[in-house]
């Protein structure tokens, strides 16, 4: 068990989120969820909304941390708090403007825009096909395109023999997806 004396640094926390280490995610909840929960429930939200806001906040933190120009200028706690506050205010504003039947929906903050998923018909089909290409393929594609890992890192994390192997495997997966897709629409 971790002791208090070992202070967990922000970069360790970020790395823990990146690798979805369960103990680190639990630590993140213990450490940062209380203030978000308090904020949301004292601003006309309920527990479920607090949980959703917090989860969105972590997703934003994670995805921002993958951007090459990302620098954590404040502590993770401060960052999360400001992201979650913006997300929650945005949600309240939009709810309010819907109730008031206002035409002009307020502009979204950057954090909220990041989370919008507009899914095309083809993407919808592709997501179904994703379930058919096997876990190894899925992991390679997620690590490459979502987590923005280098081939060498992917090889290490997935215990594969090397970056060249990762690359050829990925191309194989892509071709397989294409083939499945062509079969499906024809």
């Amino acid at each position: 068990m971790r002791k208090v004396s070992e202070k967990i640094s922000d970069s360790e926390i970020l790395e823990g989120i990146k690798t979805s280490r369960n103990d680190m995610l639990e630590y993140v909840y213990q450490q940062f969820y209380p203030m978000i929960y308090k904020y949301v429930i004292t601003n006309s939200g309920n527990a479920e909304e607090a949980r959703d806001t917090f989860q969105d906040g972590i997703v934003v933190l994670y995805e921002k941390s993958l951007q090459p120009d990302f620098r954590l200028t404040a502590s993770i706690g401060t960052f999360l708090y400001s992201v979650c506050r913006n997300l929650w205010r945005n949600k309240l504003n939009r709810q309010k403007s819907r109730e008031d039947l206002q035409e002009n929906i307020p502009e979204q903050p950057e954090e909220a825009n990041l989370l919008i998923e507009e899914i095309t018909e083809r993407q919808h089909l592709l997501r179904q096909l994703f379930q058919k290409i096997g876990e190894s393929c899925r992991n390679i594609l997620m690590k490459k395109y979502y987590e923005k890992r280098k081939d060498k890192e992917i090889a290490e994390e997935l215990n594969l023999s090397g970056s060249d192997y990762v690359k050829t495997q990925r191309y194989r997966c892509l071709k397989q997806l294409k083939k499945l897709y062509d079969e499906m629409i024809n």
Partner: protein
Amino acid sequence: MDLSDQDIEQIERYLLGELTDEERTALEQRMKTDPEFADEVSFMRDIINVSKQEGRQHLREHLKKAEQKEAAKIEAEINQETEAEKKWNKTNFINRRNWIYWATAAAAAIFVGLYFGIITPSGLGKKIYNEHFEPYPNKVIPSTRGIEVPENFAHFSQEEYNLVVRAMKHYQRGNYKEASELFEQHVNRKKENAALIFYKGISQLKSGKEKQAEENLRYILNNKESEFRQEAQWYMALTYLKVNEIESARETLKKISETTGHPYKNKAEKVIGEIGKK
């Protein structure tokens, strides 16, 4: 159209923004003249987007697991705290509103008591106790939330430790009854718990369990290594005063006043003066 690995690589690097200006211009030129190739690029863009969606969902699933394990616990704790604060504010409000009434009544009662000689020395111990009791500050439990069991409490499980933390929070808020109950359930009389037993004793003293308080404070006093020995001695004297065992109190206070450098030396001397000569 079947793409070569080189083509795939080019498209991938194009979509990830990794191509040089020259390569990019060439690829965009090819898209213009070869619609099938352009389709492949657009298909690849969708795959990348879908991979991102999958990745995000994957992360959310992990977060959900942590949430299920932690969120309810944290929420319950905060709700309880907020309730306790509300309650505290409410009682305070009532007290504030009525203080003039109570003060007048008390003054009248004291006057009547003094006049008819009803107030006898039997209430003296309690009076002195009330004047001198101050809760000892929390010096053992770090106040940050959500940290794991510190080394000096390694004999507790995380769950037990959380309860001890909660007991200490009650103690600090002056909810001595709740504090003493939690301490009683989770802090047994053993060496590793010496520091906590001290707070357990004070909580008991404040919630009408003077006998248990005396036993626990005595345990600290007899434990040569305990960091709160001298403090326990003072609170023991207060316990005797509260139950009006003036002679025991005097004896303990005398010991304190005769110990050089005792943190409660001056206070003890003062109280001895107040309870008067035998």
